[in-house]
């Protein structure tokens, strides 16, 4: 006869250390746990509520500029460093951890329109309305740390390239020596190689004298390695593709986006939209995709295109995804290094975070004192977001509003993961959905959004009616993804 007894071996219950957890044995038979789903639903609900409670995204502001922050660049090699340029020609290097200025780069006369750092983080390129491109040496990270206590150091430019036109933007190639400036055209420069062209006239103090072979003095000056011009309008933004370092995209005031390929040293394609593109960002994890931020006519607020469009660089005749939520022009856009989301700064004084494939934002950040956001960056570890705005401040936000900062114990981490998974699982149920999606908005934005909705709805209704009252097939509605695209030029 078999006798059933409860047997427990001491080995299984003996901890190896006093800190170890007691082992718990569970019976996972679902028949004896009939309430598990209900329990998990309640947990999901609580997790959603807790997320709301702990959502404190604003970490701090970095003040020091005396004019609007016009551009920013992150140091790809140093997590704590971020460069910012302002409208008064001031360039600063900030230490995000201590939220202080580490170093200043004085020299620009007009507004600084673009800053970019090389991949190794040693060289900073800046340009502005004073028609000069300046190269700077970035102080090493060790200096940055030791300089914490002392006053801000001041740097002298390594090089100065003078040009004919004002610059609007600059971006540095990933893992290369080239950088591109945008202005009257797109110029590709190489900061390791001097290109000289003979010049006839003296136009600035920065001129080198060379003797030609017949001892005639010739005047040379540094010049871009390559110049692209397609159309006559001003190019306002330029971005290199981090995944494919030889590909870059620009946007111009003629409402166009142009793609270039440096390997073939030619333009690739041009997309013309109804409204102007303010900024472009390439997805660092998907080198064929990029997202563009739009700026519309300012005549009617509701008609303005405040959306972002994600494109596949191969098929520009249709946007992959339209990201809409902003109520005013989107000024800047930056991808998270994970490639799963991007952040936008808008003229409506808010910062939003979108999923790369989602139509609506996951998060909106705003404060009372933050004005028009001109530039926005994701930190290199995808944990923080830095915004620069009209009020001359840089602001540091958490990319995930309720994230717990600091070192997490493994158990804590597991708990967080569990809560996240639960929220994700029950996000479609009405209560959880409501709590997760709810955000308090400033009144103007809330009203503007409502107005936009109304107008859009009216347009839609009108379209519907027109369709209903005309011969079948004579009126067609273009999908939203194609609606704003005028044509693709070759």
């Amino acid at each position: 006869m078999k006798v059933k007894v409860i047997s427990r071996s001491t080995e299984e219950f003996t901890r190896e250390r006093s800190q170890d957890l007691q082992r718990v044995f569970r019976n996972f038979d679902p028949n004896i746990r009939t309430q598990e789903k209900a329990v998990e639903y309640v947990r999901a609900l609580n997790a959603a509520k807790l997320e709301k409670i702990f959502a404190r995204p604003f970490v701090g502001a970095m003040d020091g500029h005396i004019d609007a922050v016009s551009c920013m660049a992150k140091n790809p090699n140093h997590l704590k460093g971020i460069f910012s340029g302002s409208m008064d020609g001031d360039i600063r290097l900030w230490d995000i951890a201590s939220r202080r200025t580490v170093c200043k780069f004085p020299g620009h006369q007009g507004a600084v329109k673009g800053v970019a750092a090389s991949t190794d983080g040693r060289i900073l390129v800046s340009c502005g309305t004073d028609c000069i491109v300046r190269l700077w040496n970035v102080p090493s990270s060790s200096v940055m740390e030791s300089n914490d206590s002392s006053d801000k150091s001041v740097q002298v430019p390594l090089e100065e390239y003078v040009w004919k036109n004002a610059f609007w933007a600059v971006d540095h190639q990933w893992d290369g020596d080239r950088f591109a400036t945008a202005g009257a055209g797109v110029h590709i420069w190489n900061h390791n190689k001097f290109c000289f062209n003979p010049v006839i006239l003296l136009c600035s103090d920065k001129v080198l004298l060379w003797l030609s072979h017949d001892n005639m003095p010739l005047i040379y000056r540094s010049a871009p390695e390559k110049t692209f011009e397609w159309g006559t309008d001003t190019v306002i933004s330029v971005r290199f593709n981090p995944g494919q370092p030889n590909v870059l995209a620009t946007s111009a005031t003629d409402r166009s986006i142009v793609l270039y390929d440096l390997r073939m040293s030619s333009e690739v394609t041009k997309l013309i939209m109804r409204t102007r593109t303010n900024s472009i960002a390439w997805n660092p994890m998907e080198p064929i995709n990029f997202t563009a931020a739009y700026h519309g006519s300012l005549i009617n607020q509701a008609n303005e295109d405040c959306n972002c469009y994600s494109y596949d660089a191969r098929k520009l005749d249709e946007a992959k995804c339209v990201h809409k939520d902003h109520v005013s022009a989107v000024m800047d856009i930056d991808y998270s290094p994970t490639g799963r989301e991007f952040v936008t700064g808008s003229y409506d004084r808010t910062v939003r975070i979108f999923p790369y494939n989602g139509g609506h934002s996951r998060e909106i950040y705003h404060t009372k004192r933050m004005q028009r956001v001109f530039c926005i960056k994701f930190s290199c570890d995808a944990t923080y977001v830095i915004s620069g705005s009209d009020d001359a401040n840089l602001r540091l936000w958490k990319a995930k509003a309720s994230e717990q900062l600091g070192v997490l114990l493994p158990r804590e981490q597991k708990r967080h993961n569990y809560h996240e998974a639960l929220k994700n699982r029950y996000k479609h149920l009405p209560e959880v959905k409501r709590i997760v999606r709810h955000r308090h908005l400033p009144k103007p934005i809330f009203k503007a959004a409502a107005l936009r909705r109304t107008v859009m709805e009216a347009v839609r209704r009108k379209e519907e009616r027109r369709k209903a009252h005309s011969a079948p097939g004579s009126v067609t509605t273009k999908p939203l993804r194609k609606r704003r695209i005028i044509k693709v030029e070759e």
Partner: protein
Amino acid sequence: MAETKRKSRDNPNGKKSKKQKTLATQRDNKRKRRGPRLPSKFRKELDRLNPSGAGRSPSGSDAEERIDSDEGEVYAGNDVYEYEEGVTEEESKKNRRFDQVENLEYEMPEDFEDENVSSDDENEDDNAGEDSSGEEEHGDGRHSRMLQEITGMPGEAFEGKKKKNNNVITEAYPESEYNPSRDVLDGHGQISIEDLLDPLHGTSGYSMLRKRVHQMERKSGPTPTPLPKVERKRLDRKAAYQHSNKDALKWVPLIKRNREAGTIIFDNDVDLGFSTVGAIASEFEPRTEFEKKMASLVYDEKVMDAHKKDGARLLELNEVSVEDERDRQNRIAKMRSLLFRHEMKAKHIKKIKSKTFHRLLKKDRLKAASSENQIDPEAAKELARKHEFERAKERITLRHKSGSKWAKRIKERGLKAQDEGTRAAIAEQQHQHSLLTRKMNSMNDTSSSEESSDGDESDGYSSGEQDRTSRLLEEAKEKTLKVINEEDEVPNSGLLSLPFMVRGMKKRDEAAAEEAKLALEDFESLSKQLDGSSRGENTKVGPSSGRMVFNAAGTQAQKSSKTKSDDRTKADRFYDDSDGENDIEAEDNNDDEDICFHKHEVSFFSPCGSQSFDDIAKDPGPKTTDEVAIFASGAWKKVKAENNRVKGGNNNADKKKSPVALESVSKNEDLQVFHSFTYLLISGTLVKETEKDLGEDSDSDSEGQMVDGILSSGPKASYELPSQAELIHQAFAADNVEDDFEKHKQEILNEENPEPEKPVLLPGWGQWTHVQQKKGLPSWMVKEHDTAKKKREEALKKRKDAQLKHVIISEKLDKRAEKLYTKTLPFPYTSKEVFEQSIRMPIGPEFNPATAVGALNRPEVMKKPGQIIKPIEFEEVDPHKKTEQLKHVGQKQKQKQKQKPKQKQKKNKIVVWRRGCSGRVSVRRVGGNGWSALGLVGRHLGWSVGVREDRSAFWGRSVGVGVEMVGRHWGWSVGVREGRVRVLEGQSAFGMVSRCS
């Protein structure tokens, strides 16, 4: 005319459109209007500088503009080369307006200030700069070569200004010394290549040149007109677009894989490489003085060199000089002599017999020790240990407890007779003893006293196992009695004083009392048995009989009953009575039978009053079960008889007794009993009822009948069995199922569609009282009620279950359940089933094993704050391969790919490694305390073998800090953190991480 000539000269192939012509003429017009005059001398000079006939083609101007583009329009006006173009164009104008003039030079200066002629197309060319020059036509190149040959000018003069063959018709060559003759210009005589080659005849390289010319001639058909620049650029872009698209295609599988991966991990790129003992040892850095000294010697350059070489030099380095050796010998000799002397000294001291000397020596030693104690904690500890040892020794030997010969003698003689010194010595000894044993006493005080008391008791009671058991029984009995007596306390206030609580407690107390009594009975029986057995043993000794035994028990029981006489429960009475009965019965039996048998009977029947037969049967106390069987029937009879006997006397006893008896009987597998039950069932009355009847019926006659009936039912087998339906009907006689359902349905209907309230007549409400009295309810109220009623009826009719008689379909919507459903199917899902499946299984740690929880709860993106994430790097991905759950980005990925084939082999089994092989460790996930990702499989001799999530295994032992522990064995702790297997607490600084298959 001249124009046409020029045309033919410029473009020997004669391909030119009319449109272009007109364009050119227009431009010329423009130029003429604006052109300033240039002195002919200047112009000549220019021509000299630009001998290729810059004026002839716009390509010349192009080249100039290319340079211009750097400075912009500002300099464009100053460009000297412009004029030539102007000259040529002007000429054409002249052709139209004026007569043809031979002297072209004169007119040229007119266009001096002419603006930039280039068209939009040309502008674009400008951007292209030098790069575009490469794209120029072959024809142009040939032409310039030709010119070069003719003029003998260095190639540089032409290089910058390679012509671009444009559609625009341009002017003729400006006249200069380098230009060919007028005839040629006029088109009378074309210069053939042969003509040009002729003068070169005989020079070096002529034949080669000729050959090439021939080749070209053979091939050359008419050179096509180059496409317009816009067109060319477009084609370029198109090619570039296609190329870049093709290039982008390579990313697609990679992107797809990353998108489809359940989790993408941005990990620290941890590459342990080959970590062997040597590798880890090489990282060792000397820290202490000694280590540094050692290191300086070991890593001495000379030694290292010698090591690197054949090692022969090591011997040289190891050479010992004669002086050194002598020194060493001297040193050793000195040490030896010192040792010897020390030995001798010790011997000498030991030999000294003087006590004072030794005392002094001891004193000194103690002093030194005490002083040492104060300084050195280690010494103090040592001392403490020594003391402890002494104390223990004292406890064992009791040396100081005046047990010695000397002490005894002194005691014998009396202390008073001793002198001062001896007394002091005795006192000292006692003091010593007390000191040494003090701690022991303090520790064992209580236990020893207890023991002693126990001993006393045992002494008092006299030994013997039986006695002890009886004593235990006595005690138990006492305790139970105490429990029973204690029951009465009822709190006067608080929750427990509430009536229902009191009632409940009383009930519980009663139950407890019952139990206690049963226990008491048991004790008694046991004690009796014990007594009996003891008596049985002692029959010879004492004249005690079974009767006596019984009496003893009886008295005891009576005594106990007396003690709780205040308890007026039925059970108590029953207990008393039963006891009495037993008494009587026993008496009867005693009369009839002999003692020996009686003993058995007592043992069985004394508990019979309160216990069932079953219990008796189970009771281990009684001798045999056979006897139980024998007595079962007898008992039954006896019960009956007893009942009959006591019938008139005690009703209470009857009441209780009979059901107990019945029960006890029923539990026996007696055939008769079985019959009785069948009988009971068939007659349609439940056993319970009969019992109830029995309970209610105070008359024991009925019971007697019943028993008779039972007994007699066996033979009455002719009873007719009713049909099935009847049986069912009988069985559910009391249940009106249909009615119940009907009622239930009505209730539900009322709940879901509530009946309208009947209008209530309230005096003065809705109508004047007198009117109310006359007319009753106001009409509107009635009407309202009617409509409400009608509405309800309609609603009831509309219900789905209106026509279904046996069905209730609830139409109530549960609002609370609503929030548990989505209104529409959520976006990525295409079917309801899939969505429901996706949220079916729980994911929590309570509902899943620890190994699965990690995978279930893993977030989509795993990254570490403070970890810079680099953009994607290209890698080959097999698009047809199945995607995995986890995706590592960066170098990690590559590493994983390398391992791929291995992992496939390893699937579902743990690989055993041989110790000593080294390889690469890559543990991907950190196991927390739950070991979700990583389980330790085994340990041996400090080597740990674990399994990773992907079922590949690892083992290892390494050095590290701040690591999560996985396992420990022999002081080696193996942990895993950040993808490393490490040893937490190693015995040595060296470890080894290895993994191989």
